[in-house]
């Protein structure tokens, strides 16, 4: 980044060292001539000059910051920006006295190309997106209408004052131009002052958002007026005004689009940086900066572009890059922004000293100050009045006062005014002086007084508090509630659209921009993890022991009291699939972490807060993904809701709306067959002929049963299957040595699973088979007790029941009744009495009813198997394996057909 400063730095340095440089060079050359031969020490000032000066400046600025913060009492009263400007004034005076000339200036090129983007990039990237969009309406109004209002009023009124003959002589266009550049609230100044004031978030986001978004207005007005000034006011046609408006639209919307495009690119690129973690932060900086430059390139609003790039990409980038990269990005951005801000303020101070650059006009200065304050206040009051018609939480008087008073002007105005061409704008020097005064007044006087003002008005302060898990959960619930209520009331309100956007985000954007492993993580789980990590860190900070703290503050322990004690943290972490890892690196250094990670990718965290919850399906069929993906979540929720409704329907014996119901069921039914049909195609592909009879039904059945509960478990099954295979294998001499591949051979339905991850660890197959068998039996018996209480817990039983189940769906289309009873036989008996209700006279309806009720019966054991605590703990040796897999065992044998086909085969040797 330093190097980036190179170009303007050279100019800067050159101008700085002009008087000094010749002498040093002379000295150097004479030295060379005089000494001759080899010199041990060389004076190479000209070589290092530029970076040296830049580095020195940065050092001075940074040291200045340290010094300010020595005195606590002082810094609480005086904002840093004031101190920096004062320091700049002093430094400028010193340099001026020393060299009789002011070499340093806030160079607009340097400012717009390097200093501003670092601040805006930081602001955009760390912008609280939700808050920003919640208040988008207000921000846009203040930014566009407010800025226009300020610009025109200030411009015209100054012209009026000029007509009265009080101030310097300049044209109307000149004054309008000046009005435009002086009226925009400045992001740098606002950030510098407001960050120290800590007003509440809404207030802050409105003022700050305005200062960012109004850039488009300022840029356009500035350019339009410059061109008007160039051609002369007389030659401006009406069409030009419309061009100005069109240009505004293009500049703002174009800038936003450029930003969003870069956001998408950035997010997409970070999807693939897994192997090159080290340059992840670089991508972030580069692309965000490129967004800014590209917008500048097309003379669009660069600030808008960068802001939206930051806002847009953050969610995806943060999810994609590693924790360390996240920290790096955060600190680097903050460091750069802080330094840039410091330099800007110091240079503002220095620039003010140079008397040759400006000319004083008391009338202009005073009237400008009065106008910008008055019009700001009027604008804010008027717009707020308008806004409060629409706002959920109206902005009250106090807010309006702070907003009016917080309209700070800053370096952007100064840089723009310095950019003016003196040939065209004759009054430039007066404008420069006025701008400097205005900036100083707003930053120093208002910046100094805003804190006491806020205190005095008792403006609600922001609490820098992280949300608790309760708040996370309940606020999400609130969002769902509000969306539902809006839907019920038939309003297409804010929540409605936000929900729509979130659906879109989940279904398309996230899928495109997030890593697969990340995509499946639940936001809620992430939040939970973050809170856990924070707690753990704070516990450790307070001198706690990780081991004990892990027990205390990671309540996941409580849920698994049935499991044997975990002996150390690493084990603990490993078991949880990095669920509660205190430090990501801990997990990474664990041997076999890769497998863990793979596993995690596949099964640990999947699903999202009900948007699209697509399961990781490729184990079943690689082509599945292409089908009905986007409907998955809807279907899931839909089905579940339908199921619940059906249950309540049954329980209340509510028969009135029969027709309507069967209609709904028809929908529910239609969804599944459609999927099932498409599923069959990939299933035909597999190599072994025997699979054909199992495989097609597998995804089919899978979907029938519900989606849901199989989904998460599915990736785990690879681990489970070889286990059961190994178990058989160890007992039968016939079988091949225990290895994953052998497991696959033994279980024909598994080769359809082609892309098995390496998670079929050999370890799993080696663990004492007897324990595994125990675990297996236990799980089976628990399955049986859940599924069909009366049946004796025999190992063959699942096969039988599964076989009968296999028969079930086949018969379903033919005769609903029999399938219902078939399902009742193998499934729970809770559903069977109620199934009788669904025998409607019409044949078609009957079919659907039967199929559905059967599905339901299958669901019930499933759901109940998920709720109760895991089965009795398996022996310690198998605990790590058995625990997590047990649920999947019953799921497997209950749900899918394959085990029924597989088990007889693999078991045959044992029985023989």
């Amino acid at each position, binding site marked *: 980044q330093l190097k980036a400063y190179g170009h303007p730095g050279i100019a800067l340095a050159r101008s700085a060292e002009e008087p000094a440089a010749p002498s040093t060079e002379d000295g150097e050359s004479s030295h060379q001539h005089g000494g001759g031969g080899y010199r041990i020490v060389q004076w190479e000032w000209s070589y290092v000059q530029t970076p040296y000066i830049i580095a020195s400046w940065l050092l001075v600025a940074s040291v200045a910051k340290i010094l300010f913060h020595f005195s606590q009492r002082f810094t609480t009263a005086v904002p840093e920006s004031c101190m920096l400007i004062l320091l700049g004034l002093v430094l400028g005076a010193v340099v001026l006295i020393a060299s009789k000339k002011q070499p340093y200036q806030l160079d607009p090129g340097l400012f717009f190309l390097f200093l501003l983007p670092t601040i805006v990039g930081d602001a955009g990237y760390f912008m609280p997106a939700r808050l920003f969009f919640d208040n988008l309406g207000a921000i846009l109004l203040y930014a566009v209408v407010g800025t226009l209002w300020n610009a025109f009023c200030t411009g015209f009124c100054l012209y009026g004052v000029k007509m009265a003959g009080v101030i310097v002589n300049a044209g109307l266009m000149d004054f309008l131009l000046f009005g435009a550049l002086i009226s925009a609230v400045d992001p740098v100044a606002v950030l510098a002052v407001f960050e120290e004031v800590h007003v509440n978030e809404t207030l802050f986001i409105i003022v700050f958002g305005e200062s960012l978004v109004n850039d488009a207005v300022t840029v356009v007005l500035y350019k339009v007026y410059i061109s008007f000034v160039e051609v002369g006011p007389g030659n401006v046609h009406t069409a030009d005004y419309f061009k100005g408006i069109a240009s505004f639209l293009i500049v703002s919307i174009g800038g936003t689009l450029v930003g969003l495009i870069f956001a998408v690119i950035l997010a997409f690129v970070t999807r693939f940086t897994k192997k090159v973690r080290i340059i992840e932060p670089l991508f972030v900086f580069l692309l965000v900066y490129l967004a800014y430059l590209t917008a500048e390139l097309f003379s669009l609003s660069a600030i808008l572009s960068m802001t939206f790039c930051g806002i847009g990409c953050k969610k995806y980038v943060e999810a994609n890059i590693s924790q360390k990269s996240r920290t790096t990005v955060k600190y680097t951005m903050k460091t750069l922004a802080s330094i840039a801000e410091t330099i800007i303020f110091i240079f503002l101070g220095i620039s003010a000293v140079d008397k040759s650059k400006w000319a004083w006009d008391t009338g202009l200065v005073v009237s400008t100050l009065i106008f910008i304050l008055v019009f700001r206040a009027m604008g804010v009051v008027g717009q707020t009045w308008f806004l409060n018609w*629409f706002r*959920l*939480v109206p902005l*009250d008087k106090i807010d309006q006062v702070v907003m009016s008073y917080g309209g700070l002007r800053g370096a952007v105005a100064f840089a723009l005014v310095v950019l003016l061409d003196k040939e065209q704008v004759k009054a430039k020097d007066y404008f420069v002086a006025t701008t400097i005064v205005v900036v100083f007044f707003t930053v120093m006087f208002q910046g100094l007084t805003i804190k006491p003002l806020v205190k005095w008005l008792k403006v609600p302060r922001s609490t820098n508090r992280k949300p608790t898990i*309760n*708040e996370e*959960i*309940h*606020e999400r*619930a*609130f969002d*769902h*509630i*509000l*969306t*539902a*209520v809006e*839907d*019920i*009331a*038939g*309003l297409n*309100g804010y929540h409605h659209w936000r929900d729509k956007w979130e659906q879109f985000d989940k279904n398309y954007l996230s899928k495109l921009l997030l890593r697969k492993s990340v995509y*499946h993580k*639940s936001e*809620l*789980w992430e939040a939970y993890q973050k809170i*856990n990590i924070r707690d753990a860190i704070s516990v450790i900070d307070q001198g706690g022991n990780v081991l004990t703290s892990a027990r205390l503050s990671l*309540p*996941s322990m*409580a*849920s*698994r009291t049935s499991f044997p004690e975990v002996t150390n943290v690493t084990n603990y972490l490993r078991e*949880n699939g990095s*669920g*509660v890892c205190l430090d990501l690196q801990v997990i990474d250094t664990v041997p076999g972490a890769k497998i863990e990670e793979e596993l995690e990718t596949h099964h*640990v*965290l*999947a*699903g*999202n*807060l*009900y948007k699209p*919850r697509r*399961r990781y399906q490729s184990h079943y069929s690689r082509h599945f993904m292409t089908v009905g993906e986007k409907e998955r*979540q809807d279907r899931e*929720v839909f089905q*579940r*809701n*339908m199921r*619940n409704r059906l249950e*309540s329907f049954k329980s209340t014996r*509510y028969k009135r*709306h029969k027709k*309507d119901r069967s209609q*709904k069921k028809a929908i529910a039914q239609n969804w599944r067959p459609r999927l099932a049909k498409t599923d069959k195609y990939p299933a035909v592909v597999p190599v072994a002929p025997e699979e054909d009879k199992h495989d097609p039904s597998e995804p089919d059945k899978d979907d029938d049963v519900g989606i849901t509960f199989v*989904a998460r478990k599915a990736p785990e099954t690879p681990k489970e299957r070889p286990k059961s295979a190994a178990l058989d294998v160890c007992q039968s001499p016939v079988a091949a040595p225990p290895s994953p591949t052998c497991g696959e051979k033994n279980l024909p339905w598994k080769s359809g699973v082609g892309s098995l991850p390496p998670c079929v660890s050999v370890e799993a197959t080696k663990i004492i088979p007897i324990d595994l068998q125990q675990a297996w039996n236990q799980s089976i018996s628990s399955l049986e007790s859940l599924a069909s209480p009366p049946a004796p817990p025999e190992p063959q039983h699942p096969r039988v029941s599964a076989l009968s189940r296999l028969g079930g769906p086949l018969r379903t289309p033919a005769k609903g009744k029999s399938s219902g009873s078939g399902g009742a036989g193998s499934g729970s008996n809770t559903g069977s009495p109620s199934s009788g209700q669904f025998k409607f006279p019409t044949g078609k309806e009957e079919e659907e009813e039967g199929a559905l009720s059967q599905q339901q019966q299958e669901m019930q054991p499933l759901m109940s198997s*998920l709720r109760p605590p895991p089965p009795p703990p398996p022996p310690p040796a198998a605990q790590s394996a058995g625990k*997590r897999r047990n*649920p999947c065992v019953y799921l497997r044998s209950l749900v899918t057909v394959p085990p029924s086909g597989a088990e007889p085969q693999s078991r045959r040797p044992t029985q023989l």
Partner: protein
Amino acid sequence: KKLNISHSQITRLYSRFHSLDKGENGALSREDFQRIPELAINPLGDRIINAFFPEGEDQVNFRGFMRTLAHFRPVEDNEKNKDLTSGEPLNSRTNKLHFAFQLYDLDRDDKISRDELLQVLRMMVGVNISDEQLGSIADRTIQEADTNGDMCISFSEFTKVLEKVDVEQKMSIRFLH
């Protein structure tokens, strides 16, 4: 009506009520709500529908409909003061919270048990997160909120844990002024 809803909004909602009321008997049944397509894909849809019905009934008339909706009316400044005189309005903070609380509290024992919390979490979180993880989230949630050690979240604990949240704002919709 004493719900403080403007006339135009009542008219608007009344026509909405009628368009939902397919049975045309002046009352909405669960099916009428379930017919709203967006609700079928709302994770908490059914819970919210249930909240519209008084306990043990499966019909809700317009008055009841409005009464439920009135929970979501924003709190206005001038109302904060007169709370004391005229009982608690439906859109008070407590009532808003209670509405949300009821969604969790299935058995209406004024406590959110671990199971009840798990059910709601499961609804909101989708199916791909494991039970263990969800369980640990639930445990933590309860641990955090539970003050009297009964491993349930009572309504007062619920209120307490959300006291820093701007419920008035987050449980309000900008209609019904």
